């Protein structure tokens, strides 16, 4: 079985984010990057499937030269090979999906796993665009998987409940937290990851479909009101949260 896992490199969740001087992108100085947490579930699922059925897991990322560390990470956890589509420019979801699609159309994987979203831009678009370009069935935000022959049964979260889909392979799965419990890479495997191959492909120059025109940190302004704890006060707090702060 040929399995492709798309992974991305994102700022660590504990990193303090600052906007760069151009006001359009985060300041990447002193930012620690990690493998996107949702991709860990995707990777784990891919490795488990390979361990059960044999075959090969290939991890792919689209990103700058510095993104290679997450591919080593994927190799240490258990991917057999990695593909690095190199691009130093800022790009949008369509570009990422089209680059993965190009590789996938040659590799012809039986199944493609990816995280439901990258925690940097949170656009949740890559799985859907990829499914469209490759014309493959897609189940997003999946929390449980069962395999029967070339059919995949996927449970996914929906508002207030769950939905069960049946897909025919080849297909695409985007993983949600809870799909599995990702393993820790074993130390000997970390040492061996260096010896596994990473194929490097230069991405073409690309005109973004979407241009980021500005980026701002959430404002920290306060309402600066102090209220008591009577029922009336609580009603007032609810009103303020609703009407002034527009939280709900």
């Amino acid at each position, binding site marked *: 079985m040929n399995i492709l896992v798309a992974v991305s490199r994102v700022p660590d969740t504990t990193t303090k984010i600052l906007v760069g001087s151009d006001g359009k992108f985060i300041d990447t100085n002193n930012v620690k990057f990690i493998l996107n947490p949702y991709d860990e579930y995707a990777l784990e699922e891919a490795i488990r499937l390979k361990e059960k059925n044999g075959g090969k897991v290939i991890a792919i990322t689209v990103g700058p030269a510095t993104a290679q560390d997450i591919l080593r990470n994927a190799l240490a956890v258990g991917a057999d090979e990695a593909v690095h589509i190199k691009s130093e420019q800022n790009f949008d979801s369509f570009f990422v999906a089209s680059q993965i699609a190009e590789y996938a159309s040659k590799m012809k994987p039986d199944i493609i796993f990816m995280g439901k979203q990258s925690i940097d831009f949170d656009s949740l678009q890559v799985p859907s665009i990829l499914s469209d370009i490759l014309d493959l069935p897609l189940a997003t935000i999946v929390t449980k998987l069962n395999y029967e022959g070339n059919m995949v049964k996927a449970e996914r979260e929906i508002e207030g409940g769950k939905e069960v889909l049946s897909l025919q392979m080849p297909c695409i799965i985007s993983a949600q937290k809870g799909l599995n419990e990702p393993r820790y*890479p074993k130390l000997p*495997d*970390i*040492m061996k990851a260096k010896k596994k191959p990473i194929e490097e492909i230069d991405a073409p120059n690309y005109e973004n479909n979407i241009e980021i025109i500005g980026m701002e940190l959430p404002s920290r302004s306060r309402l600066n009101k102090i209220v008591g704890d009577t029922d009336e006060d609580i009603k007032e707090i609810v009103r303020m949260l609703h009407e002034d702060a527009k939280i709900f």
Partner: protein
Amino acid sequence: MPLNRNLNEEQVMLRETVRKFAEEVIRPVAIELDETEHFSVELTKQMAELGLMGAFIPEEYGGTALDYVSYIIIVEELSRVDGSNAATVAAHNSLGVGPIYYFGNDEQKEKYLPQLASGKLWGFGLTEPNAGSDAGNTQTTAVEDGDYWILNGSKTFITNASTEITLGSTILAVTGERPDGRKEYSCFLVENGTPGYIAKPIHKKMMWRASNTSEIFLDNVRVHKSALLGKRGDGFKQMLKTLDYGRLSIASMGLGLAQGAFDYALNYAKQRKAFGEKISTFQATAFKFADIEVGLELARNYLYETCRMANEGVKITKEGAIAKLYCSELAHLASNHAVQILGGYGLIKEYEAERYYRDAKLLEIGEGTSEIQRLVIARQVGCFDE
């Protein structure tokens, strides 16, 4: 200096993996294990599966084949979260596996190392009730009897020697007298379960409460001559060399503990308010963090450099002692500050500062007290030369 400066990609990944494991798997149970003095077989198994127990021995024995810097990073990251479990790993590798790997013959290595890399433990029995710093006062004896040796005596404070997954311990014994009249020492590999050999846990410790510390009694214990480690008469030399390396892992425990206490206290100080301000902004608090940060930077750079010397095979008697002394005293200072910064909560067991404080104290005593480290350093610089 950045934490991972001059480290290679694997070393960074090792650090991140062990840090994550320690935070996610060990931290949530550390308080409870400490409180109940519970040595966790389960956690030890998980650490073995990760590859932490055969850290620097070659793959042919099931080891991870790490260089010394990488090994020290593992211990540092475990100790950052929990002293007891770091102790299990550090003692096992440096004191348990080390002597067998460095001084054992092929047969001994093949017999023991694969098991010790995959979840069984081995102890290192040097200290006796009347021989701690003064190891020369060792009273345990081994007498030759045909193809066998008969051991009598006792050992105390031996880490990892009496768990349900312990295979045995290396025992230092007096095997005779040298031509110059001094005692002759040799080491023996003695398995748990050998008739006359009793190893049992010491309880009610102040620190490392979830680590196994044992006393050992040897009453006419017969071991085959194949259990002799290396050559007869090499025992003392083997012990000294083992301690040279062992000091690096205690140093690393000190560095990790100091970092853990620092991180814990800083996180607290940035949230706790007094007089309307975060307590981290009071100069008295801020300067404590500044002082510890200076120590952490110096300690880490010195220790890693000493490990690089060890990798190159350079003798590290002085440097190892300096690293051990400095890092363990830094751990003491950092954990003392951490308790102070937490105020009353620093004294409560639901918070972790007091565990760092207790665990730190061992580091100034085990594997050679701070006084003995100063003696070693002073001897190396020539104070006692004729």
